[in-house]
């Protein structure tokens, strides 16, 4: 009997192996900023010069994101947030289901926000599934913009739109584009944060990419 005839290991086993080896990219390193509409062209131009995936023009995306929350049944912990993203410009692509944990800003010496993150590609009736699971839609919006890649770093420059009730054209939230620089990596690879800082510095003074705690901002206003 050849090696191919050995019994396949169960999915749970392979998952726990992967967990042990720490190869699952479940941490997101994140820097955020924005750029005014008037300056976005300059930023794009600069990114075209800096990034890898620009041979065949810039990559665009047009996504819709729905944010769900799942209450803790014991009312103890904060509700679990799940986000579903689907591409409006490529309808046959799978949905992206995301779990994002609490952001950890750390002290001043930490270069980026770190938050736990699970990125799961899904197909099927995901929205309905989440609804039935007990999730509740918190809010939704659409994002439209450009995606760049530099090594492991992902840079998105996007406009955030409110979803309008009627068939009106979607209404942008502000006169700026949201700029995000992120890397998904397994736990403990903090060195990437320095790389991200270095890259963020290249975009100054056009964009100021920073660690931003939206939780605190939300309470402030």
């Amino acid at each position: 009997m050849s090696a191919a005839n050995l019994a396949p290991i169960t999915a749970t086993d392979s998952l726990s192996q992967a967990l042990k080896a720490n190869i699952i990219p479940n941490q997101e390193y994140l820097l955020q900023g924005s750029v005014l509409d008037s300056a976005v062209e300059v930023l794009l131009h600069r990114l075209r010069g800096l990034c890898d995936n620009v041979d065949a023009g810039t990559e665009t995306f047009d996504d819709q994101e729905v944010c769900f929350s799942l209450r803790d049944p014991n009312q103890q912990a904060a509700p679990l947030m799940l986000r579903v993203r689907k591409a409006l410009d490529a309808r046959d692509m799978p949905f992206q289901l995301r779990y994002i944990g609490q952001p950890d800003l750390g002290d001043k010496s930490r270069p980026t926000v770190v938050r736990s993150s699970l990125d799961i590609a899904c197909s099927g009736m995901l929205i309905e599934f989440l609804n039935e699971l007990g999730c509740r839609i918190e809010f939704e919006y659409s994002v439209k913009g450009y995606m760049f890649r530099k090594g492991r770093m992902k840079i998105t420059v996007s406009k955030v739109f409110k979803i309008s009730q009627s068939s009106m054209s979607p209404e942008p939230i502000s006169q700026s584009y949201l700029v995000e620089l992120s890397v998904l990596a397994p736990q403990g690879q903090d060195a990437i944060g320095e790389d991200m800082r270095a890259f963020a510095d290249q975009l100054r003074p056009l964009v100021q990419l920073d660690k931003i705690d939206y939780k605190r901002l939300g309470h402030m206003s």
Partner: protein
Amino acid sequence: MQREEKQLEATLHAILNRVNDLKTAIQALISKLENEYETINWPTFLDNYAILSGHLTGLSKILQSEVAPSLRSVVVLPLQLGCERDEALARLTEGRVPACTHDLVPDLLRTKPEPQAEQRLQQFNHKASTLSHDTAQKQVAQFTKVISHVWEIISKGREDWEGESMRSAGMQPTHSIADTHALVTAVGTGKGLRPGMPSMGPSGVGAPGLGPSRGPAPQLGPAAAAMPKAPSAIKTNIKAANQIHPYQR
């Protein structure tokens, strides 16, 4: 006696090394000046002076240290002065000192500063010692003032220059902190994205946000009416259903 000799030798060796270092550094400096004066990067060139001064302090440290005292007791006695070329000396000095002549020896073997210099030094020392504490303080303050003024001018100039470079690209400020915060909170907590409830935190209690029905909306059976995606027409249903789903409250 032998131990002392050994010590002396070691000290001399150390001094020689230092002097050699200094020499090579000076050589490098000179050759740079002569050969690369067109392409030279002046800030890095200044670093050469730092190297020189490093070597100098190293040398003076050795000379000041306790190992040195034996040197003070050693006398260098010019045995022979002459105008003839001394090959051995020339080789030792790499051709700089061809002969041990009368006009060179006083400079080379000097152990004290020149009398004129000594005099001036004394003058300065005297002036410093006679200066009152108050005047000294005053002068220091004045000096700091001048320096901080210069610093201000420079930093202002830099700001202007940076602003200029941005303006020359055809823009006023390119980003706004307020917009950044608005966008980040919107994406993070949904602020401004929930129709009908403008600034509610993520844990907001109350009627669920009524998301407009979207693209491939799932078919909502009567059982699913509890879901917040239901159109507003069946708001009452939501309430009723909420009782069935206590966790939704």
